[in-house]
């Protein structure tokens, strides 16, 4: 199938992916770091700018396509997944990157995100989560934590936030990963997402320096990285804090818990080995309470299944097999009758 074909690698540099447009994000915005990470990653993937399409909705993150020198389509609020679906079905050879945010992808466009993931359309979805509406000036978003004061919630928000990665898994995503804007590991996460055949969902925690400054500093700051970040690697134990702590599965109550690792003997401490195909543990990892646990980062889940466009094309192919596109036959389908010239009593007059 076409979507499983490995595209020919093209030699590019970071510069080749920069467009001539002036970047219009606020100075210091986390989006700059993500843009650079993407522009740095694409040459490493051998990606071809002519076959790469960045599709976005509306919001700060959705300005992204303008700054890439590939093809790009800045669409309407929340609907980018639906546009991407049509693009991919029309031309499965295109490499689609969907750029969205917590408002765009989880609120107004939640329905489309859900169905895009459920259908499993081969693409990379980058959800910039800054837990706030930036472009509309600071209203709370569906990922804002309880009590978030904002122009629409002056006394603090009262609704519970949603977890984008849990949502993605619930919708049937076959690839779920997490990173954050300034992380040096982000390119690795992006590469894994790109390697995944299917819809690859990547939540990127992003610092909105104007409306939600340092919201994620409690785990993104260098000083706390060791204790607050758990970088997952397939086949490796879930260790953090320089290998002195890890996560263990409490089999009595079926939840994850933190254990101390003595002298690096993680086996003795029963530390769980990360298996990217384990869906149940993936659910647990993305739902770990941020306050009590390190934040699970990297590839949480990666278990490919056939893509939607592949299945549609295969079905179309079978349906077309041996059939000719004969319009005359199509028009005359069903029961027909012939009026002979001999019986002709002249054409109908309209007047």
């Amino acid at each position, binding site marked *: 199938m076409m979507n499983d074909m490995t595209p020919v690698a093209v030699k590019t540099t970071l510069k080749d992916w920069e467009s001539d447009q002036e970047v219009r994000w606020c100075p210091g915005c986390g989006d700059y770091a993500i843009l650079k990470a993407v522009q740095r990653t694409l040459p490493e993937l051998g990606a071809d700018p002519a076959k790469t399409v960045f599709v976005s909705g509306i919001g700060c993150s959705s300005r992204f396509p303008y700054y890439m020198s590939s093809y790009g*389509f800045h669409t309407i*609020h929340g609907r980018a*997944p*639906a546009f991407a679906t049509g693009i991919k079905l*029309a031309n499965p050879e295109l490499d689609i990157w969907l750029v969205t945010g917590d408002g765009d992808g989880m609120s107004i466009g939640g329905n489309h995100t859900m169905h895009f993931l459920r259908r499993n359309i081969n693409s990379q979805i980058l959800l910039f989560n800054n837990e706030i509406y930036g472009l509309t000036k600071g209203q709370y978003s569906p990922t804002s934590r309880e009590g978030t004061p904002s122009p629409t919630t002056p006394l603090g928000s009262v609704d519970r936030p949603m977890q984008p990665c849990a949502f993605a898994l619930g919708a049937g995503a076959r690839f779920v990963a997490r990173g954050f804007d300034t992380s040096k590991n982000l390119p690795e996460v992006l590469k894994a997402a790109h390697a995944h055949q299917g819809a690859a969902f990547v939540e990127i925690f992003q610092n909105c320096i104007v409306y939600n400054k340092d919201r994620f500093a409690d785990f993104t700051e260098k000083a706390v990285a060791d204790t607050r970040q758990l970088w997952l690697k397939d086949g490796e134990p879930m260790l953090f804090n320089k290998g002195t702590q890890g996560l263990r599965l409490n089999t009595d109550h079926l939840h994850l818990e933190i254990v101390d690792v003595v002298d690096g003997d993680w086996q003795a401490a029963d530390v769980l080995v990360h298996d990217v195909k384990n869906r149940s543990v993936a659910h647990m990892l993305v739902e770990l309470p941020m306050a009590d646990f390190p934040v699970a980062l990297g590839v949480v889940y990666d278990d490919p299944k056939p893509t939607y466009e592949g299945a549609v094309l295969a079905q179309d192919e079978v349906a077309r097999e041996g059939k000719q596109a004969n319009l005359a036959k199509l028009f005359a389908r069903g029961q027909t009758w012939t009026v002979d010239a001999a019986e*002709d009593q002249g054409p109908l007059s309209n007047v």
Partner: protein
Amino acid sequence: MATQVDAGQMDVGSEAGRVTDNTPETVVVRFAGDSGDGMQLTGGQFTLSTALAGNDLATFPDFPSEIRAPQGTLFGVSAFQINFGSTEVSTAGDQPDVLVAMNPAALKVNLADLKPSGLIIADTGEFTKRNLEKAKYEVNPLEDGSLAKWTLLAFDISALTLQAVKPFGLGNKEALRCKNMWTLGLALWMFDRPRQPLIDWLNAKFAKKPILAEANIAALNAGHAYGETAEIGGQVKKLTIEPAPQAPGLYRTITGADAISLGLVAGAQLAELPMFFGGYPITPASAILHNLAKMKEFGVTTFQAEDEIAAIAAAIGASYAGSLGVTSSSGPGIALKGEAMGLAVMAELPLVIINSQRGGPSTGLPTKTEQSDLYQAVYGRNGDTPMPVIAARSPADAFECAIEAVRLAVQFMTPVMLLTDGYIGNAAEPWSVPDPEGFEPFPVSFMSETNNPGGKVLPYKRDEKGVRPWIKPGTPDLMHRIGGIEKAPDTGDLDYSPPVHQLQTDARKAKVDGIAHHVPAQEVSQGTTTGKLALVGWGSTYGAIHQAVRRARAKGLDVSHIHVRHIWPMPANLGDLLKGYDKVIVPEMNTGQFKTVLRDQYLVDAKPLNKVSGQPFTIAELEAAIEAALA
């Protein structure tokens, strides 16, 4: 129009069985029953046999939005009306000559429409105490003399059907399902139709359950034999409606939904494009998605989206990637698509949007017909968002309109809306099967090399018609970004400075306005190019206006009929044409929307003639309006 049958002729028994001098030119029959009685199927099969007999015809399926409303209720009545004749037929007929009522509710709901002295065929087996109560009859109307002004033919169709299918050992419920075939058998006898095509159809339909095929055929034959033998008691006689004069060639019947599907496929082939159709189930537009899902060999990909917005968004995405994007819905769904249409206008991408109008506002009347989405089509988007709009006037015309919509979309890089309605979508008429060779292709050429050597590609550089190039992603060296934000001319770079927005708004408007010079000039469909009165219609009112004007002109009245296909922009000559008449009346199934557009565009004193009952205009209503205007 021809003298229609009057029941005086009908209730005189004729031994000959063939009527010559007294045979009417057209007959209107309405089949009415419970929504589960199979009336639409009965009507559809009767239509087919009528077409095969060479009559001209028009149909009007009229059914409730409930799939199977509670049995026997007034709101659960489903009806199918057909007008057929040996002369030209262009409406489903004002008043039925024959009403087939399968239960008391069907009789009650439809009786008022029946022509005085028309024929009622009723199934006494269903006129039980319980059913009479459900239909809110205190006394059985078949017995109290209240139907005296009509001809009544009442017998126990239920019992006769049970008797006919007894040998097949079906359960009571299944056996009674054959009632519609019994009734159809009688109707085929009345109008001298062959049974064989129907027998073939039943055999094919029940190929996996031959017992059901046999039972239905037995019921059909029994109904036919019932007419043939003396059992009817001379109340009704056989009528032979001669074939209507038709140009020689191959014909089939076609509904509007079928015609649009075929027209879209033809349009995509003429444009040499694969088609992508994004849809979401909605009454009465779903049939188009169903049809196209079976036409994959024509390069059609169909996508049932998660909602109306996703359906249009995916279609726009496909257009962006180089396919012909098409989406279809009805009013409520079109409302949801509005924002995305704006993006297609802004990004300047081709797209065809089909609106099968139904009664509104909100959920309104899902299965009934109305023309009340004209404002929505022409004006219903945020911003200055000009978009061409085309309206089909009949099932067969919908085929050509679909091709025209595709042509305008790809030649002008614009979304185009095609208006049809529930009436056109479901109604059937004979269609002269066209020769595909007869259409002029309009192949699309995508840009493959830069239009700005030495500089960056200019995706929004306009040609002399104001049209930008279509550039497929995947094309080497032509990378660019598009979107819904205002953009600089030529480069398409994000730019919403004051002069740029002024310039681009003007350019988008000029492009769409200019289409007026690339569509056929408006013709007068009947009558003269100047005169005392013009009836200016659009869409499915065509048949009724046509016949009303024909009758009025036969009486010597100075009235002409203009029927507008290109609603926006309108043909360049339309304004001058309208100024040639003393009076202009605009009949439409809304509260005066096209009238307002005409007044606005041409300062013409167009008068409204409106109907919003969910039912099409009758010829008589329009005739009366013509006479009043010229009195």
